[in-house]
Every structure is written in structure tokens, then in C-alpha cells.
């Protein structure tokens, strides 16, 4: 029923209006983050023994657990986000232009959360700079962990550049309506801007997008992150060539889910149903279905090759998957989401935004649990499994669990703050929607204007 035309005023709304609900959400996110910070300080004071982690082997524990699982999860969300945004630009998927910048921002927020996890996970975070950078020229030759840090940093820089370049156009044009208190930020971002550069910037952004699209599968979630595990032959649950594609598909499912959730939150908060249209959610849901299918397909490959005639250690690792709730439940959740999405293609009336959100949230939970199980179960079922204590047990401590809430709070805070500084929807998107009415935004929209962000 909406025939509203997207305007500059629409995308400026978050910068101009701040409601009571905004502060409530800000407070809630800050408390979530704060609770974890307190837990982390306690961990720094006492030691890593406050976690549920332990030594594997005679110690019968897992030395990597939820921290690493959540690290992979955030990196996955981050990488998928930027892939989505880059695909919009490269493949001309204009339909998703209104959520492209949100996806880019999700990448920066996700990478920040992941980087934070690296520090939280370490026994001596104070040595990060001296020990890692000091020996970088040697360790970069062989340590997958150093490759990780390198590529994550590269990705952060790439994404930040990408975002900064595209913001120049918007900020220059919307400058008069932007809050004065951030004047220095805008000045910096638009340093030396002239209209002549628009075309150049567009080309540059295209190349950066190309780099991202090429790097992501080769280096990021199809590369160095899975290589942390896939290169270790003594862990049958980890070792092997399939982890690259497997990680990438999981990253994309969680990232699309993340974009669905964040986009919906902004749409609901700022009355953007004519900008982030139902059509976008339908499309994102289909993509989610496609990547869920790939996710499950690759899991099936592993289950089959791990049980048919596998080595003793590999069979034990696979048997655990087939019996452990931390594997069965998330896989069932993803399967359920896939079935629902499949059903919506047969009967479009089954689609609703609430269900799309639910699918996204389910996938986000499933991928976090699956990734944590992947890390933990790998250590539970090593090739050398002679120790009585192996496989041991692991249940994350309250501090570890609060880290998930804390980093979600951190990411929400990131969005709440950045939405007050720069437009989270591209001006290009609004111009595009105005000039091209190829896409429908005819469905009913909620009229609430309260700024509620679901994370």
C-alpha cells in the first residue's frame, strides 16, 4: 500500500531523531557488553582457569572452546557481509543496494568482535604487539594463526576503505543536514572531494569489491580461517580439504541471517518499509536457503566419508557428530530453515517477515553452536586418543557465555553509534529507488517509529 517515495529525509532520520527507545537499547547493549567486561577483568585477574577450558590429553579437556567458536562465528558473519555488499556492486544486484552499507558495517563490527575474541582468548594479551609483530617476518612463513591475523587485518582495512570511499559521495551531498558535532569526521572523510572524482571513486570501489570477492573464498573463510584446523592431520574432525568450502557456506548463511536481522531492525525503527522492502527480505531469504543447502550438503559429504569406511579415529569423530546434541540440534535447525524456505518458493504466501527473522535468528544460533562444537569435538577426538580422559567434557563457564552476549552488545553499540554519525543507507540507493521503480514496495508496512534494534 505504500507509495511513498524514498527521500533524503528518510535516510537522515536516524541522524536527526533519537528516541527514548534508542537510549533504552543503548543501555541494554552497554550492560551486556559491560557484564562481559567485568567477567573478562576477572579472567585477567585470576587467569584463564575461570573458563571451562583445560589441557587436552591426560588433562581431558579442550584447550580451545567457545571463545574460538565465537571468533569463527563473528569472522564468518563479517566476511559474508562484505561479500554480499561486494556482490551488489560487482554483479549489479541493485535490488539489495539499500542493505549494502549495513552489510559493510556489519563486517567492520563483526571483525572488531572477532579481533576482541583473539585478545580475550590469549593467556598473555599484553604481549600481542611485542611477540607477534616482533617475529612476524619469521612466523608469517608457517603459522596459520599469523596468516589469520594478517588477512583479517587486510580485510578490515579493505572494508574500511570501501566504506570510506562510498561515504564521500553521501556526506558531501547531505552535509547540511548532518549533525554539526561530527564536523571534523565529515571534513576528514571528504578531504579534497570534488564532483569529478565520483566516476573515479566508483571505479575504485568496483576494483576493491573485486578484490574482496576474490579474496574471500580464497583467503578468508574459504582459506586461512578453516586452515587453522584443516591443516592438522591429527584431528580427523578438522583435517581435510572440505573445510574451506564448508566454512565459506557457513559464513554466508550466518552473514545473510545477520543482514536480515539488522536490516529488519533498522526498517522497523526508522519506518523504512519503502526502502528496505519486503522484496529484499524475500530475496535474502532465498539466498539464505541456497547457502543452507550448500552448508548441509557439505556436512553430508563429511558424514558419509567419515562413516562408510573411514579410519578408526575418523569414525570416532563422525560417530560423535551423529550422537551429540550440539551437532544434531543445529543441523536440524538449519534443515528446518531450509525446508521452510523451500516451502515459500512453492507457496509464496508462507513468507512473512516475522518468519524470515525467525529463520535468520535460528541460523545464527545454529552456526554459533555448530562452530563451537566443531572446535571442541575436534579436540575431543584426536588421532592419538589413547588417554582415558580423552574425550573429556567441556561446558563453557558463565564468563565464556557472557562473552557472546557481550560481543553482540558491542556490535549493537557499534550500529547505534555509527547510525548517528553517517547514513546507513546509501544515497545512491535512494536515488536508484526513485529513478527505477522496477522493484515493488507495495506490501503493508509497520507504522511504528520506535527505534528498536534486534540483535
Amino acid at each position, binding site marked *: 500500500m505504500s507509495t511513498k517515495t524514498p527521500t533524503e529525509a528518510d535516510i537522515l532520520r536516524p541522524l536527526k531523531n533519537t528516541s527514548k527507545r534508542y537510549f533504552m537499547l543503548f543501555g541494554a547493549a552497554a550492560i551486556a557488553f559491560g557484564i562481559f567486561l567485568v567477567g573478562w577483568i576477572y579472567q585477567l585477574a585470576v587467569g584463564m582457569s575461570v573458563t571451562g577450558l583445560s589441557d587436552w590429553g591426560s588433562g581431558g579437556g579442550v584447550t580451545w572452546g567457545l571463545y574460538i567458536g565465537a571468533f569463527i562465528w563473528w569472522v564468518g558473519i563479517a566476511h559474508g557481509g562484505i561479500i554480499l555488499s561486494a556482490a551488489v556492486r560487482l554483479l549489479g544486484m541493485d535490488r539489495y543496494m539499500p542493505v549494502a552499507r549495513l552489510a559493510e558495517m556489519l563486517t567492520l563490527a563483526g571483525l572488531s568482535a572477532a579481533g576482541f575474541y583473539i585478545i580475550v582468548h590469549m593467556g598473555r594479551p599484553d604481549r600481542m604487539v611485542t611477540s607477534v609483530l616482533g617475529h612476524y617476518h619469521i612466523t608469517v*612463513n608457517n603459522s*596459520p594463526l599469523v596468516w589469520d591475523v594478517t588477512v583479517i587485518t587486510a580485510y578490515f582495512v579493505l572494508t574500511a576503505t570501501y566504506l570510506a570511499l562510498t561515504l564521500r559521495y553521501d556526506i558531501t551531498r547531505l552535509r547540511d543536514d548532518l549533525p554539526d558535532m561530527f564536523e571534523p569526521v565529515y571534513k576528514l572523510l571528504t578531504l579534497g572531494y570534488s564532483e569529478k572524482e565520483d566516476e573515479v571513486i566508483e571505479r575504485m570501489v568496483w576494483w576493491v569489491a573485486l578484490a574482496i570477492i576474490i579474496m574471500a573464498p580464497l583467503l578468508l573463510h574459504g582459506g586461512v580461517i578453516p586452515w587453522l584446523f584443516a591443516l592438522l592431520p591429527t584431528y580427523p574432525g578438522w583435517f581435510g580439504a572440505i573445510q574451506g568450502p564448508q566454512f565459506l557456506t557457513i559464513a554466508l548463511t550466518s552473514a545473510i541471517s545477520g543482514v536480515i536481522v539488522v536490516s529488519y531492525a533498522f526498517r522497523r525503527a526508522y519506518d523504512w518499509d519503502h526502502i528496505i522492502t519486503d522484496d529484499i527480505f524475500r530475496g535474502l531469504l532465498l539466498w539464505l536457503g541456497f547457502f543452507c543447502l550448500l552448508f548441509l550438503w557439505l556436512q553430508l559429504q563429511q558424514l558419509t566419508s567419515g562413516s562408510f569406511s573411514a579410519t578408526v579415529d575418523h569414525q570416532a569423530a563422525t560417530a560423535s557428530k551423529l550422537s551429540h546434541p550440539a551437532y544434531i540440534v543445529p543441523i536440524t535447525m538449519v534443515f528446518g530453515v531450509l525446508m521452510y524456505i523451500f516451502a515459500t518458493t512453492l507457496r509464496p504466501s508462507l513468507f512473512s517477515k516475522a518468519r524470515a527473522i525467525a529463520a535468520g535468528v535460528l541460523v545464527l544460533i545454529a552456526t554459533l553452536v555448530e562452530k563451537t562444537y566443531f572446535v571442541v569435538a575436534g579436540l575431543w577426538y584426536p588421532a*592419538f586418543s*589413547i588417554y582415558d580422559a580423552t574425550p573429556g567434557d567441556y561446558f563453557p563457564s558463565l564468563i565464556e557465555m557472557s562473552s557472546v552476549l557481550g560481543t553482540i552488545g558491542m556490535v549493537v553499540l557499534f550500529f547505534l553509534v555509527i547510525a548517528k554519525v553517517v547514513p546507513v543507507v546509501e544515497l545512491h540507493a535512494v536515488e536508484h529507488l526513485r529513478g527505477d521503480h522496477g522493484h515493488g514496495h507495495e506490501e503493508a508496512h509497520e507504522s511504528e517509529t520506535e527505534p528498536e534494534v534486534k540483535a
Partner: protein
Amino acid sequence: MSADDESFHPLGKEWEGELEEMLDDTEYDTDLGMEMAQDAMRVTKGELSEAEFHEKYHDDVMDEFGVDDRPTEEAYEAAQEEAKGTVGRMLSAFDGDGEETRRETMKKMGVGAAAVGLGAWGATDDGPEADFAAADDAADGGDDDGIQWGMTIDLERCDGCLSCVDACSEENQLDQGVNWMYVLQFADEDNQEPGHHPAGGFENMLVRPCQHCTDAPCEKVCPTTARHTRDQDGLVLTDYDVCIGCRYCQVACPYGVNYFQWNEPDVEYEDIPENASEHPAAHVPADADPEDVTYSEYDDLDDDRWVDARAPRGVMSKCTMCPTHQDGSQGEEHIGHTACEDACPPGAIQFGNVNDELSDPQRYAENPSRGRSLERLAIPDPEELEDALEGEDDDLESVLDAVDFQAMDGDITTDAEGLGILLALEITGGEQMGNGPEVENHSDFVHYEQEVLDVLEVLEDHGLDLDSQEVLAELDLADPLEEDEDEDDDFEPDEDDAQFLLQRFAGVQTSSFKLLEEYGTNPNITYIGSEPGPNAEQIEGPVQYDSVDLTDNRKEVLDDDTVTGGMY
């Protein structure tokens, strides 16, 4: 691998033919080339040493080419030393596999062998570099590689008493449950209820210190170089001042030997020597400077590094093979010894330089029956022996009556058997008898062998002819003399008989293995005994950890700190 068994070359007859054609096209002797190629293959297989290869063809190569740049044995060894000392060492710090040294050596290999030999090397499984390394090792005979500390552990002698675990824990003042040395017994498919082993220990034991791998996966993944191999002696150590506690080394190690310092260590740094000194198995003097037991020397660094004893909070630790002993900072007598080795009652742990074929671990692995015998016997004191023989006749019977050789070990049933074993030790000792590694202190065997020689000397001085066939036959070390046969003055005792005697006493090892060798870690521990199969599972061992104030499963200790809010 080969298409044709008759071809020396792994790629088969066809490739061999191609090689031959290539050589025919040159002005040089094809037959010589092919012969050299065949022998080059033997070098890669370790059947022929590189030096022997060079010697064999030196003259031919001189005739054919007028020049032989390939080093002869002396030149080769000198080149190895030189490379090790300078460029090779510097570069090996980067990639750890001495690639450049081998390249240098390859250059020195010269024309003929390089042209033909490279083909051979390139065709084997791991590519030219890897195979050249194999050939390199074979050529050295082990002696020229410098020191590589390692162990031979006789699992058939291990009775699971946990003395080694305890000694290590005390020496290094480890936290409860941090078992750098770990001993376990396992049930396996073919032996579900392991019992006593005839060699004196239990069946299906596994003694698991760090394997100090030559290609350590933990070192490879370390993002900081904290986990490193010490150039001078091959020990894999952790620089406690550099480690960031990411625990990737613990993840990458297939053996599970790493123990993270999850919280403040139980023992203060300053208290390490004093606490350790209270334990009889530890060697540390109470008033020692803590740095003497924690900081270790590096030939290639100006400063000592903190790599030994319990780790500080937040960093990784594991068995170090006592580098502060090896440095001599706790006294010369501790060089070549570890706390666990010294504490092992049956002498099942043999520590030493595994690159030296005269070291204890190598000699023990080469002939475990003999090694066990040396470890087991309580050899009589020569002076007491002289006293016992005072006034006795010099025939065998009188000597056996006078001396209680049976007392040397509970399993010896007669004095004749006891004396036979002593003689058998000498007969099987060969030229190495009493000759240990360069620093004699390193070797227990040298001491034991010297003790044996001293006893035999006393007996011979007394007048007993230990070379006579008649005496040796009485001791089961020779065939009895035929009635009409005269005693041969140059009679040589039969080494097989001697070996048999040792085997009858100490048992024959069933097998030896290196743990998880298939993962390419190149561990420096050789085990004697049954290798755990893929389904092996730890069972309750002969001695319980808690009965000797140790903790088997550290998680029980760590769980005390885990924040659960009392909910789980």
C-alpha cells in the same frame, strides 16, 4: 612404484632408457654414468653413504672429467661443519630444515653425480630436497649432525611406578596435574588385560614425555617463535618471556604433551630451587639461584632465555628434557641426564645424544637385551672380589664357589650364569666396550662396562683363563671341546652364544617404534615394546597417580576455578 622391477630407477625402465640416451648424447662415458646413477639411488635408500659413493667413483671421475669437485669423505665432513657453523645455521633458524645447507652440499656434489643423481633424487616420493636430506643423514652415519638429545625408552621394563613423573614434577615444581612426563597402561585389541612382562615391567605401558620432534608441529604453528628448537642440541623449548598463550602449539601437537599455565603457578619463582631441593630425586641445591634452574644458554644468542621449570601464568609449558642440566649449570655431572632418567628404578629411560651411535639410547636401542643386562646387574666391587678370591684356586669351579655372581640379580639362577653374563657383555661389547660419547660423564653404559671390565680383569689376574674354550664352554659361551681336540690358543668366543645368554637373562624386545611417526614429526624418542594400536585405550595402571600425590586428570584441579555460578 617401479613399472619394471629390474630397473634401478623408481620411474622404471623407460625413464632409465631416457637417462641412458641423454648420457649417450654427451661426450662422457655412458656406462660410468649409469653405474653412478644406480649407486646414487642406493645413497637415497641409505644403502650406501654419500662419502662411500664419492670415494668409489673418485678415480673414474678424475679419468673421465679431469676434475672431481665432489668432496671426498674428509672434504665432505669439513664442508658439513662449515655449513653448520655459518650460513646453514643462520638460515636453518628460519625454516628449520637446513635447506640451504643441503643446497650448498648439492653444489659441491659436482657435475657427474648431480646430472645423473638428481634424476634419481627427483624421482623418489618427496622431491629432490627431501630425499637429499635422507641421503644426507645416511651419509653422516649420524656423527656429524651435532647433538640431538633424545631417548630410548624400554616400555617392557617399565613397571609404572611413576617415579619419573614424580621426579619431573618435583624437579620442575609443576602444578598439580601438570604431568610433563606421563605414564600410562593401555588395553589393546590383542591384549585386553595386560599383565607382567617377562622383561620385568608390565605389558602395554607407555611412557610419554615430549618427543622433541625434529619437525615439531607445535613449533611450526607458533605465531611468536616462542616455541622453538634450540640449535645447539635440538631441544624443543618454549620461551616463557615471548609466549602469548594462544595455545595453538597444544592444539597442533599430536601427542598431547603440552600443559598450559591456566592460573598463577602453585610455587613462587623464588621458591623453585628450595622446594625442588627437598625432593630426593631432584638435583637442585636449596640455595641455588632460581635463574640456574630456569634460564638456559644459547650458543647463538647473547642472553640466556627462560625456558625451564614451571611456566609463569598464561604461557605454555611441556617437558623440556632438562636444558639447565644439559647446560651444566647444575654441575657437570648432570650433563646428559634428565630428572626422569635418573629417577627410573629399572633404567627404562635412556637419555642421550641420539645422533651419536655410541650414546646410551642408541646402544640400548641397538641391542636392548644387552642394555637391559647392563642396567640390571649389581656388579661386584673389584676390591671385595679380590678379597673373596684370596687364597682360592684359579680354576673355574673354585672361582664360582668363592664369588656370589648370583647376587647380581634375582633372576640369575647360578653363579656360572652370572659370570657368563658378565663375559657375554664383554664379548658383545665389541670395540665400543667402555668407550662412550666424547664426554664420558654423559654415558651410564661406559661406567657399567668399565665395571664389568674391572671384574673380569680381577678374575684374569687371579689366574682364571677367560679365553679358554673349556671355561667358555662351561659358561655356555662356546661349544665343548671334543675328546680328541686340543685347545686352540686363538679361540674366539661365539658372539651369538653370548647374545643368546643375554637374551635368556634379559629377554628379547618384541618390537620398537617411534610414536605417531606417520605424521612426519620425526620424534626423537625410540620406544622398545608394543606400539599402541588405533583402538588402544588407557586403563588403570599399576600405580595410581593420587597414591603418590600426583593428579592424573588436571581438569579436576582446574574445574575449581571455573565460573559456573554454582549452576553446573
